[in-house]
Every structure is written in structure tokens, then in C-alpha cells.
């Protein structure tokens, strides 16, 4: 039992070490700033131009977009880059489990998204004059959503390749699809039955609805459902990442 706890503490500590290292090395890299920081803001402002939108509504959308794009940007950028430079081998050969390594990598994207979300909150409060109905729920939503979408990004980062370009293409494509079918651009209440049915397939729909609950105080879906789907999605997203990493070890990546 003592060994178990020692090992668990070791593993958690190593995940944190990987996260800290990545924060130092990658947060200011152009790829992260472009895909993780600027993109959600560009998308939000291009969508908002000449649209009548309440301040709270705008802030909820900006937050959902931010955690979605920012969190999912880290994995597809960092892991293929490290594979190309050979630094990923250092991590794979280090005394920690694959799950620990993946947990560390998920935290990198999640913390980035949480930090960028704070900027979105500041923009919402000070520039859009929005008020937040449930601040605690907003914080919980940002944290859970950030970890979930970072785990989603990790799937693409886990594709066995040494070229970040091979990963960016499918990663961007799928993120755009998930964005367009979700309730971010068209609210769930205005969707047709079929479109609404499809939107339920996108975890972003639940993140958007959760942000509506947090900022506006109201949403289309039950709060527990939003939280549960986001949490479970995060866990489920880990599975393909583990499988792809194991495949990478068979293929030699």
C-alpha cells in the first residue's frame, strides 16, 4: 500500500513537472499564440460584427469559443513538435506511466485555456459590460471545459507523426465541424429538430449551454447534463490518445 501511494505521488508530481516544463517552453511559441490565443477572439469578433447581441450572450459565446479552441490547440502543436525534435522520447523513456504523461500534457492545454479565458472574462466585464449570474459555476465550467477540450486536442497530438502539419489539418477540420454543429453560432432554441439532434453530438454544445447558465443564469439543457457530458467526454477522449500512443510505440514514433 505504501508503494502504491509513493508511486502515485511520484506520478502526479511528474505530470506536474511535464506541465511546468511545457508552460515554460511552449506558451509563447507562435503556433500556440496563433491557434490558441488569437483564433477564438478573431472568430468571435468576426461573428459578432453587425449582429445584435446582448452583452452577457456575447460573453458566454466568447468563453465557450475560448475554452474550446485554446484548450484543444496545445496537444496537436506540442506533441508532434516534440516528436520531431526527439524530446518526446525523453518523456516516454522517463520513469512515469503513459497516463501520467498524458495527464501532464492535458494540463498544459487546460491551464492555457483557463488563462486565456480570464482575458475573455475581463473583455466581457469591462468592454462588453456583461454581468455574471453564477461566478462559481462559470469558474467550474471553465475548468472542466478546459480539461475536456485539452483531452480532445490530445487525441490529434497522439497521432503517430513527427510533423505538426499532419495533425493541424484534421484537428482544425474536426474542430470547425464541432463548432458549426454546436449551439455557439445558432442558439439551440432556434435550431430545427434535426440540427438540434446533431448539435448534441458536439461537446461544445454543452460547454456553450453551461456558459449560458453561468453568465446569463439560464440554459436550454439541464445543468447536471452539461457538467456530466463534459466530464465524461474528457475521460472518453483519453482512450483514443492511449490507443494511438500504443500504436505509435509499435510503429516506432
Amino acid at each position, binding site marked *: 500500500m505504501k508503494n502504491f501511494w509513493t508511486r502515485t505521488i511520484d506520478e502526479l508530481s511528474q505530470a506536474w513537472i511535464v506541465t511546468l516544463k511545457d508552460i515554460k517552453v511552449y506558451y509563447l511559441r507562435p503556433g500556440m499564440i496563433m491557434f490558441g490565443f488569437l483564433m477564438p477572439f478573431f472568430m468571435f469578433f468576426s461573428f459578432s460584427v453587425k449582429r445584435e447581441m446582448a452583452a452577457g450572450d456575447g460573453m458566454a459565446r466568447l468563453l465557450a469559443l475560448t475554452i474550446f479552441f485554446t484548450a484543444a490547440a496545445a496537444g496537436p502543436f506540442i506533441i508532434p513538435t516534440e516528436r520531431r*525534435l526527439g524530446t518526446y522520447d525523453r518523456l*516516454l523513456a522517463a520513469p512515469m506511466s503513459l497516463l501520467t504523461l498524458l495527464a501532464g500534457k492535458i494540463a498544459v492545454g487546460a491551464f492555457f485555456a483557463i488563462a486565456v479565458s480570464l482575458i475573455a472574462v475581463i473583455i466581457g466585464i469591462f468592454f462588453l459590460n456583461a454581468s455574471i449570474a453564477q461566478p462559481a459555476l462559470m469558474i467550474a465550467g471553465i475548468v472542466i471545459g478546459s480539461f475536456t477540450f485539452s483531452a480532445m486536442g490530445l487525441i490529434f497530438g497522439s497521432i503517430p507523426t513527427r510533423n505538426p502539419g499532419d495533425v493541424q489539418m484534421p484537428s482544425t477540420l474536426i474542430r470547425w465541424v464541432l463548432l458549426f454543429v454546436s449551439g455557439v453560432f445558432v442558439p439551440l432554441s432556434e435550431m430545427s429538430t434535426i440540427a438540434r439532434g446533431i448539435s448534441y453530438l458536439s461537446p461544445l454544445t454543452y460547454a456553450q449551454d453551461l456558459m449560458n447558465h453561468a453568465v446569463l443564469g439560464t440554459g436550454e439543457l439541464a445543468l447536471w447534463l452539461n457538467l456530466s457530458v463534459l466530464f465524461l467526454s474528457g475521460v472518453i477522449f483519453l482512450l483514443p490518445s492511449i490507443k494511438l500512443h*500504443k500504436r505509435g510505440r509499435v510503429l516506432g514514433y
Partner: protein
Amino acid sequence: MTHAIEVHDLTKNYSSSGSGELAVDQINFTVEQGEIFGFLGPNGAGKSTTQRMLTTLLTPTEGQILILGHDLADDAYPAKRQIGLVPEESNVYTELTAWDNLMFTGRLYRMSKTDRGIRAEELLRDFGLWEKKDVKAEEFSKGMKRRLSIAMAIIHKPALLFLDEPTPGLDVQSARTIQKLIRQLSSEGTTVFMTTHQIEEANQLCDRVAIISHGKIAAIDTPEKLKQTFQQVQSVEISFTLSPNGLEEKLATLPEVSTVLKIGDKWRLYTESPPALLPHLIKFTEIENLDIVSLNTLAPSLEDVFLQITGQQIGSVSEEPSSKKTGMKRKKGK
């Protein structure tokens, strides 16, 4: 005593159907603790594939690997704690300083803050990088990155160090520093497993070498014993004051000569019997009116053994298998 490395029927097939050529084919070997073990082979022979399997970076298709008594298939964690890895390309974090690179690795191996500080300073001083400890690795030369990469691999004092091609592309001073370090690590009890193209380096450093060819271990022994096994690749090295045109072709026609290789201003004549060749050679110099500057008989080198085993021609050892050095004439029918 437990072997540092124990490998049983290790096999790797990269093809998903299992039908392709085996990169590593049922190899077996052991490495003793404290040994410097060289793993030699031409490009594509299976050296790096084997090393990647030994360091858990690649999953074997079949076979068993025991590292310091721990079966990698059961639980790689205790083995991973005791190994250090220096890959062919120096994999330092260029955005971090030399000091931060070492601190990160020390933390990965659960070293205390005090221990990793002391060890990092010791390594940086030993490797001549102390003055650059706060400089980002992106400003380092190739040799400095290599030294830092090795320092990162040994910061936790591993019992077993894997080195993939430790010195190619480095200047003489950096290469010598690294060779000296390998000897020092070995004298301190660290087992060193190195894959290399540098046959002379392996000859000088390794207690034993294995030569892998087409995924199979073709020979495994001490360098000296391997050389004794291949007495047929002895040679006579001769240099003349002048080297007239057509000399190479004429030397190749001498009895007992199997291959002629020009090395700088010298000619190396490979033969199974130097005593039988020498009278013919002396007579030839008299007929051709050539003045001899030096004349030596040479025992087989490890490179000769390597070439014999891997089936490569003498003079063709190079970074790329397709490239060929000039100045080699091999007699037909030999």
C-alpha cells in the same frame, strides 16, 4: 550477479500484417554490469530498433527484455528509473537554459532539490558548460548540445546508460571529451550500451561488441577475439616516394592480394598471408623502380572484421550505405 541487459528472442516487425522483413530477428544477448558494450552494424541493420526496444520506446513484436533484472513487459517503471538515454540527435530543450534542462531532468527522476543542484553543477563544470549555465541551449554549438544531452542522461547516476551514436559530427575535442566520459562512467560502475558507426571508437572503448547485420547478431565477442577470428583480412601497408599512374591496377595484380585500398599517401594491400605477399611486393618495387617510404604488416582491424561480417566491401563504410569511397580496387574472383 544480475545481467544489466538480458535479451531473449527479441524480434521486431514494423509491418502491420507481419509479412514484411524483420527489422530485428530473434536476437539473444546479455550485457554484464559495468561493461561498455558496443552495438555495431550498417545503416538499417537493426541497431537503433534494438536500442529503442531496450529503452521502452518501441514495443517488440516478440521476445523478452530484462533490464537489471526487470522484465519490461511486466513493469518498465523500476527499469526506467535506472537507465539514462542519449539519442542520436541531441534532444535538449533549446528554449531552456542548460541549468533548466538539467533541473527538469533531475526532477523527472525524482531527485531532491539539493541533490540535483549539486549534481548539475558538477556535470556542468566537468563538461565545460558551467560558464554557459544560464544561456539558452539554442545558442549552443552541436558539441555543447551533445555534452548537455549526455549530462541530462546521467544526472540521476543511472546504472545503465544507452548512447546512440555518441560522437559523429563532433569536433575532435568534443568527441574526446565524450569518450573520456564514457570510460569514466564505466570505471564508476555504470554499464554503457552504445550503438555506433565509429568502429575505431568501439575498438578503443568497448569491452565487448556485437555486430548486427540484417536484423541478426552476426558476431559477439571482445574486439581482440573478433580480430583473431578473421586473420584472412590481414594487410600490408606500403607507401612510395611517387605513385605513378596505373599503380593501383598493377598492385591489384600481385599474387596473394585480394584488395587494394588507397589510404592517404599509403596503399593497403589485403591478403590472407603477408609473409607470402612480401617477396612479390619487394620484387615489384624493384621492377617498377619505386622507392619505399614505409612498409608495415597490419593485423585485422575491427573495421575489417565488421566489413567481413556485414558483407560490405572494404572501403565502403560510410554514413550512407549507397555512398562509396574511391581508391578501392578489388580483385575479381576473390
